[in-house]
Every structure is written in C-alpha cells, then in structure tokens.
C-alpha cells in the first residue's frame, strides 16, 4: 500500500471482532513506531499494556469506577455504566500511554509531541496489519482516581489509551478541509 493511501484510508476503529491480538506483534509495531519517530535524547514515556482477560477486567473496572461513585449515576445510569464496562471489556488489547512532564515548556511539548507522533506511527503500522485502533482521552477517565489506578507517578501525565483489535468493518472517513484554505505564505516587505 502506498503511504498516502495508508494515511488517507486509516480509520479510528471502535468495534472489534474476536480475533486475539498478539502482544509480541504489538511490541514489534511499537518498536518500529519509535524508530520512525526519531526523537532527540532518551524516551521520556512509558506504556502499560492490557491484554490478558484479568487485566482487561481491571481496566474496565477502573474506567467506570468514578462514574459509579456518583449516587445518582449509580441509580439512574447503571445500565449505561454496565454497557460501558462491557464495551471496554470487549476491547482485545489496550495500551495506556504515559509521558513525563517538565517545567521547561520546550521539553514538555517536545516530549508530548514525540509520544503523539509515535502513536500516529503505531496506528498506521497497525492498519497495515489490519489491526484497528482508536486513541481515547474521554473526560470520564481523566481523574485522579483513575490515574492512581494505572500507576501514574508524580511528574507524569496521562497521554491516552490506544484501544486495538482486528475488525470486520471500517467506518467511512469524514472529509478534510483542503490545506490551501489553511495556508498563508509569509512574505517580508521591506518598508
């Protein structure tokens, strides 16, 4: 597949089939994703992999925990949280991504940028193997309780969870604005 075709045809996949995802394959994809990023210095990020049935169960619990804290939600929306729990449980594999923070804005942004670029490489590499992924950052999971559960340390930030699995159907893409419409050429006029 041509690179531009790969980039244009990749979709975020939220519904997976039952084929198991190999942890070794994900490691290989991630290593290549890091190589294709070419960042300066050492890696300032880490990954927590969720692949076994037990780990999947734990992650699903953590993700809905905060919602269930709320009495009203628990009463009125128990069906919703149950459905959510079930949906998370059905995700064949998940990668929790964590990056270091820094008081220097350049290092802070550089680190976040590198890890985001690695995640894009990973999503493209996955697509080549017919593994669909979606990178989630739902507000629902952005809370101290969840961070503690996944082992986030002082000086670290939660980047997101990449859910992954093989799939049967890909959604249609939403069209993009032509780059020309967001393009300005800076021309220096000497006055």
């Amino acid at each position: 597949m041509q690179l531009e075709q790969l980039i244009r045809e990749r979709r975020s996949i939220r519904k997976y089939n039952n084929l198991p995802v190999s942890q070794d394959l994900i490691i290989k994809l991630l290593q290549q994703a890091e190589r294709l990023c070419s960042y300066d210095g050492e890696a300032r990020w880490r990954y927590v992999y969720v692949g076994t049935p037990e780990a999947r169960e734990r992650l699903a619990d953590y993700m809905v925990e905060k919602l269930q804290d709320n009495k009203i939600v628990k009463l009125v929306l128990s069906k919703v949280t149950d459905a959510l729990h079930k949906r998370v449980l059905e995700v064949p594999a998940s990668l929790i991504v964590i990056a270091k923070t820094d008081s220097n804005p350049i290092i802070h942004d550089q680190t976040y940028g590198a890890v985001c670029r690695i995640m894009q490489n990973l999503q493209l590499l996955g697509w080549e193997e017919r593994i669909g992924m979606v990178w989630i950052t739902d507000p629902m999971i952005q809370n101290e309780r969840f961070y503690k559960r996944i082992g986030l340390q002082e000086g670290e930030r939660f980047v997101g969870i990449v859910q992954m699995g093989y799939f049967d159907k890909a959604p249609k893409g939403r069209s993009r604005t032509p780059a020309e419409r967001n393009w300005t050429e800076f021309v220096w006029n000497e006055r």
Partner: protein
Amino acid sequence: MKLMVRSNEWISNRQWDMSPVPQALILELLNHAVWAPNHRNREPWRFIYISRNNTGGLDFIQAQAPGYLIITMNNENDANKQNENLAAVFCLIQNFRLLAWEQKLGANVCFYEWMYDRRNCQQLGVMDKERIVAVLEVGFCNESSAVVPTSSAAVLNWRSL
C-alpha cells in the same frame, strides 16, 4: 514499501541541499497529512510557510533551512480539548514527515523559545486564539548527508497492567 520494513535514515537529516522547496509539493503532502485522526474532526491546524529568502525581518529565525513550515493550532479553554488538539497536530506533523521523506524532503520538528513569545507570534500573523505547535524546517537532502541511525531495536519502557 511497507512502513514496517522502512528504515528512518532520511528522517534525521541535518544537512540541506539549499534548493527551494516547491510550495505545490508541500501543499500536496499536507493534503494527505490532514487525514490525521483528530477529535470530532475539529481540524485544529493552520500553516504558515516562510521560505528562506523571506526571513529578512524576522531576526529570531536563523535562516539555515530552505523553508520553515510553522504549524499553529486553535487554543481551547478546556485543558482536555487543548491536549486533544495538540495530539492531532502532532499526528499531522508525523504524517507530513513520513510523506516528505519519500520525496527525499527532510522535515525536522523544531521547538524554539520564540514560539512562546506573543510578539513574535504577532509578527508572523499568529492570532490571539492560536499558538505555534512546532516549526518544521524543510529542505531536500543530499543522499550523502542523510544520517543513518546507530540505535538498533528500541528498548521499550513497557509493563503489563
């Protein structure tokens, strides 16, 4: 060639062939790169291009690369949305780098202190509700100058939940 078997030798180029980069080529690559995943299709990016011979009045830019592609982003009040936008822009940047590399076009992702200075942003036409995410220094590479990375397989910082 599959992305899985590609090497990244072109990506770390530091030596430019100083010939100008056709804008049509940059736009063509950007029109593929905008297929980056982005939350709710907000497409938070905008592009400002400065060729080397147009950097005259911008004393904060050291005109060493043939071209500077500045990628800006719309700011969001909500911290989570702000991070989502940043992530989307970095995905676009990575798409662009991979695509550029196929054309022997290097695109180094650079961060400078001046990016965070409002006055410099104003000079470049970056609006108040925007910020600069990164500067891509673009230029063609001499084959001989491409840096071949020495690191072998990356050791991942990885554990299981």
